[in-house]
């Protein structure tokens, strides 16, 4: 199986207090921010690796995982980390962070999918910076591929996947035929969430995203990393989403202590107007 995993780097949410907005409000100041891979993309990569290795001996590769990111040269750090974790090959689409939106990324990915011809595009359900939750859906639409979003489980079957999605009140299982687009949710990295046809039914993965050991980090330096120009993938680089301004959220006011339940109900009714 060949899987394409798009990855995005995001400002480390643990350092959200370092996000600065200049007085003009025109942009978000990104210098000095620490970057890390979008967590949902890491889950997608972990799931992709699980689908492309022999579960009996999980280190044996039995497929190909290609990772792709959009961004300037520095974003290659994100790709090298993915290669260290186990991806086979990487592609960086050279682009400026602020000249991209979900629609453009999806259009460019479409062209890349047509070149690479993966069986599956596996991606995070959303990036934790903009929380847009769009690219997977737009990409599937553009490619006219079957799509399953928010996957919590995946089981490979001949020519496709059974995808479990958690919804209110239960789990929906979708059968998607390859080639397909699947976006993943947090639970996809639980020990028994992903089974390829080669994985023994009793096999349990370690919970979460695997660690990259030093030999793999070293080996990742030598794995292929190609650069592609955005223009080669998308002739029209117009943006559908433009930003009109940025503003820091208002500082939180100190809380109050209520006397008793009656006081609470009164305040909810009269002050918060929530009742």
């Amino acid at each position, binding site marked *: 199986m060949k899987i394409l995993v798009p990855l995005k780097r995001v400002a480390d949410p643990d350092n959200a207090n370092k996000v600065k907005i200049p007085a003009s409000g025109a942009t978000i100041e990104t210098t000095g921010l620490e970057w*890390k891979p979008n967590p949902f993309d890491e889950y997608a990569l972990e799931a992709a690796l699980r689908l492309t290795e022999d579960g009996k001996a999980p280190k044996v590769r039995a497929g190909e995982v290609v990772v792709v990111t959009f961004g300037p040269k520095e974003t290659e*750090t994100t790709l*090298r*980390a993915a290669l*260290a974790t186990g991806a086979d090959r990487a592609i960086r689409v050279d682009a400026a962070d602020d000249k991209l939106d979900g629609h453009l990324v999806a259009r460019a990915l479409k062209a890349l999918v047509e070149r690479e011809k993966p069986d599956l595009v596996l991606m995070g359900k959303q990036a934790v910076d903009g929380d847009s939750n769009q690219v997977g859906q737009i990409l599937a639409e553009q490619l006219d591929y079957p799509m399953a979003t928010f996957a919590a489980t995946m089981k490979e079957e001949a020519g496709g996947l059974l995808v479990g999605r958690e919804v209110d009140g239960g789990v929906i299982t979708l059968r998607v035929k390859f080639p397909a687009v699947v976006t993943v949710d947090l639970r996809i990295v639980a020990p028994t969430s992903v089974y390829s046809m080669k994985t023994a039914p009793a096999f349990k993965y*370690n919970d*979460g995203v695997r*660690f*990259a*050991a*030093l*030999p*793999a*980090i*070293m080996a*990742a*330096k030598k794995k292929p990393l190609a650069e592609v120009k955005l223009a080669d993938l998308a002739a029209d680089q117009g943006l559908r989403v433009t930003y009109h301004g940025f503003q820091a959220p208002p500082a939180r006011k100190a809380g109050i202590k209520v006397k008793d339940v009656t006081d609470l109900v009164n305040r909810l009714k009269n002050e918060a107007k929530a009742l």
Partner: protein
Amino acid sequence: MATPLHETPEHEALRREARRFAKAQILPNALAWEEANEFPKELYKQIADAGLHGVGYPEEYGGGGGDLSHALAVSEEMILEGKSVGTVVGLGSHAIAIPPILACGSEAQKKKFVPPVLRGEKIAALAITEPGGGSDVAGLSTKAVRDGDHYVVTGTKTFITSGTRADIVTTAVRTGGPGHAGISMLVIETSTPGFSVSKKLHKMGWWASDTAELSFDGCRVPAANLIGDENSGFVPIMMNFARERLLIAGNCVAIAELAYRESVAYARERKAFGKSISGFQVTRHKLADMASRIAAARALTNEAVVRSLRGEAVTALAAMAKNTATDMCMFVCDQAVQIHGGYGYMREYVVERLFRDARLYPIGGGTREIMNEIISKVEGY
């Protein structure tokens, strides 16, 4: 914290994995494990599975490759993000127990003893110090008498890190006459009859790490476990100390950095006289002094590491780095407690523990005074 000049993007990738491990596996349990005076044994396997236990050791013996600089990067992140120095040093006792085997052991010994330790299946400790003295290594008295294919070992070792749970103990013994020329190194499996843990010791700091007194009472150790030649143990012991001192200096820089970070955050938050205590110039200057001393000790430690990796003899420089870093660490942790006021004296606060942890460092791995003896000798006065 600026990235050390000698580090590569691969160091950063490794640091990221160490941070991830420490945040997930150590941080949530740091206080509990420190208070319990123990961390769970499974952690050895977990850290090995994460690929972090064998960093700095050759891949052919189950290690992760890389060198001292990689090992230091890992332990720094583990301390900074795990916030339990005791856990990190307990997990790290193999860093002093394994190198003598790798440096002077036979191929068979390396194959037998090293991989299970680096896989996290066995725990290794180093036993040099005795109740009668630690600084005077050449005067140690634990005896090993050859009897056929065995050495019969009798004596006591104390202050041994990971001693209560160790499976193998790299032990300094006297096989010959008095002085350094009569010392050998033996790998002793703790399942050997005659070996016992006579005491789990209660300490000022490093609570999550167990420290033991060990007894050897007619303990019959196969002669095949002798590291190198008989009576040639002193040199590997001294080589090992030089490396340990760089690890210790690195630990001190990490501990101080953690105390500093905790203090900066606290100073911003804590209000007195209607403003943040960081609003007082005296607090800001305390923090500035802390940051400056950390930067100085870090620079010296990194220089010693780089020179050591280049193959230079760094005996004196490592001793200087150790003293500089341990003094700095005690100063910084003391200031950190001061900035925290009464809370700095309370056990739930990280800096309280770091203050106690810091006190060990001018003692363990060769005392501050012995470091100065070494520097004096090398300098020739």
